[in-house]
């Protein structure tokens, strides 16, 4: 079976407008405990004005801050088995799922979106931590697979933004298998020599880090994000000593060579655009093309074109290559 043709119709679900929020909402920063006015928080992309702490971001706000004009299209994911093991702990998994769906308005913990960033076509798979801690079951695996397939189909870069506690225990072994499944998926993108960029946000741990999240061509981390395999409590119990300062935080990972860069949230969009531009548009373009009156892909004001139905192959036109 061809995994590319077996695919999903991209579908514009809606243009997203900012939600109405009552004015009297105050948020307490989980780090410095200062109160932050809700509207201010929206403006600062949920970064605390007092201490710079990067609070977790709802998936829609995340997409809004990344895509051009805050617009994107979501793809409808194939329905997954909702409760393959008929799992029940203190509560049924099927009930937990329904609750999470009602609370978040999402079907599961990942939204797959495509659109443009700085005029460049990209596919983004972003996690909603509020959906069962962003945990990875078959539906999350399916979302990563679909995002990878879409990126290959559109010849666009894939940007994955995890925020996940790890495996979804209620799906048992099937959640563990998603580690292999998502690895195959993101490798397809890399085999096509399309950029695979991971933006590690708070938290990225367990089975999610030990699979697709650590396999990016480029690993970007948000400041202060918790990133690691084992939980701090488990480690403390094992080694019976206190953990070092800043352990498993983005900056610590950067110091240990595990991520390429730590990027503050307000710079994230620009950095991603720059990265995608560098990796996708390899040849000098602007001034060369500007000399050609008949050039098919004309660029105005040095801005990349916005038609991304096909990614820019950027083959230099030899006739105008002499300066």
């Amino acid at each position, binding site marked *: 079976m061809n995994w590319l043709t077996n695919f999903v119709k991209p579908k514009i679900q809606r243009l997203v407008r900012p939600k109405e929020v009552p004015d009297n909402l105050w948020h307490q920063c989980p780090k410095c405990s200062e109160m932050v006015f809700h509207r201010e928080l929206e403006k600062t992309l949920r970064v605390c004005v007092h201490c710079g702490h990067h609070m977790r971001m709802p998936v829609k706000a995340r997409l809004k801050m990344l895509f051009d004009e805050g617009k994107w299209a979501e793809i409808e994911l194939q329905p997954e*088995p909702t409760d393959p093991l008929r799992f029940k702990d203190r509560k049924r998994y099927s009930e937990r799922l329904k609750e999470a769906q009602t609370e978040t308005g999402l079907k599961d913990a990942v939204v797959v979106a495509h659109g443009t960033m700085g005029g460049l076509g990209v596919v983004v798979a972003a996690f909603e931590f509020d959906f069962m801690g962003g945990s990875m079951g078959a539906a999350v695996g399916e979302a990563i697979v679909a995002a990878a397939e879409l990126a290959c189909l559109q010849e666009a870069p894939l940007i994955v933004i995890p925020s996940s506690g790890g495996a979804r225990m209620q799906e*048992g*072994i099937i959640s563990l298998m998603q580690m292999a499944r998502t690895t195959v998926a993101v490798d397809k993108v890399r085999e096509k020599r399309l950029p695979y960029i991971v933006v590690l946000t708070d938290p990225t741990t367990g089975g999610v880090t030990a699979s697709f999240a650590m396999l990016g061509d480029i690993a970007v981390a948000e400041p202060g994000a918790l990133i690691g395999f084992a939980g701090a409590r488990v480690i403390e119990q094992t080694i019976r000593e206190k953990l070092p300062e800043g352990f498993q935080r983005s900056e610590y990972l950067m110091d240990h060579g595990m991520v390429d860069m730590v990027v503050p949230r307000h710079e994230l969009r620009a950095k991603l655009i720059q990265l995608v531009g560098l990796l996708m548009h390899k040849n000098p373009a602007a001034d060369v093309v500007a000399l050609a009156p008949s050039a098919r892909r004309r660029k105005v004001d040095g801005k990349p074109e916005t038609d991304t139905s096909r990614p820019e192959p950027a083959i230099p036109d030899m006739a105008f290559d002499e300066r």
Partner: protein
Amino acid sequence: MHFLDFEKPIAELEGKIAELRHLSDTDGMNIAEEVARLQTKVERDLTSTYARLSPWQKTLVARHPDRPHTVDYIKALITDFMPLAGDRGFGEDAAVVGGVGRFKGRSVVVIGLEKGRDTETRLKHNFGMARPEGYRKAKRLMELGDRFSLPILTFVDTAGAYPGVGAEERGQSEAIARSIEACLDVRVPLIATVIGEGGSGGAIALAVGNVVLMLEHSIYSVISPEGCASILWRDGNQAKSAAEALKLTAQDLERLGIIDGIVPEPVGGAHRAPEATFTAVRDAIDSHLTQLVKIDPSQLRARRRDKFLQMGRGGLG
């Protein structure tokens, strides 16, 4: 012999047999008859107990201290074994043992997680909990197998990857992810056998095979029953319930289509008759390997990738 709680009645019978045997030197035939009778009963009890082990009991059997470990399988199944060491970046991690050798005459790469048997070897092998170096060594050996067209046999037996400060600093998750990726990438047959405990990410790192086998009383799970109980039930004592709910037995995993076969264990578990276990594992691996070596290398890779790409898609069980 170490007896598990649910084996107490059997332990008592065996104790009696030992006593009688001691007597039989002095007293005659009747005792021999009684011994034979008790032995039949032991056999029968063992058979019936082991035929209906609960998931939690299977967890205990899978972790049984006398159960054969990776080094035992290597000794029994592999001739000409040449151990190889090191990740070429930081160190040697003996939680992952590996090397080249011959399986039924054919050169293969062997990689396995080893728990150790006594205090000294347990410390040496870090109780089977690998650090990043272990997974990077595994990846290196898989690439070696790929380059020289040697089939890869892995043996999985671990509570999980090692949770330590150094392990995290040196990229435990990246190392596991790369090991999974390496399993998926090779163009040679990869057969993984879960011989005891298949603990989470630390296990799947070596278990993404064309064929994944499990011993009859082994387990394979996303989290230990104890860990799951303390998180979801907020009570570590609910491990039995968690073991039920997680569907971690070989029988459950076969039903879910996650594994490709179950290797039967001798009556009373692998630890009661290691030799018979080795024979069963040898035969199972051999029958799959004979089929796999006939498949074109790129097909081997493609089929393995497709198999795992489909896992969890569109409805299981």
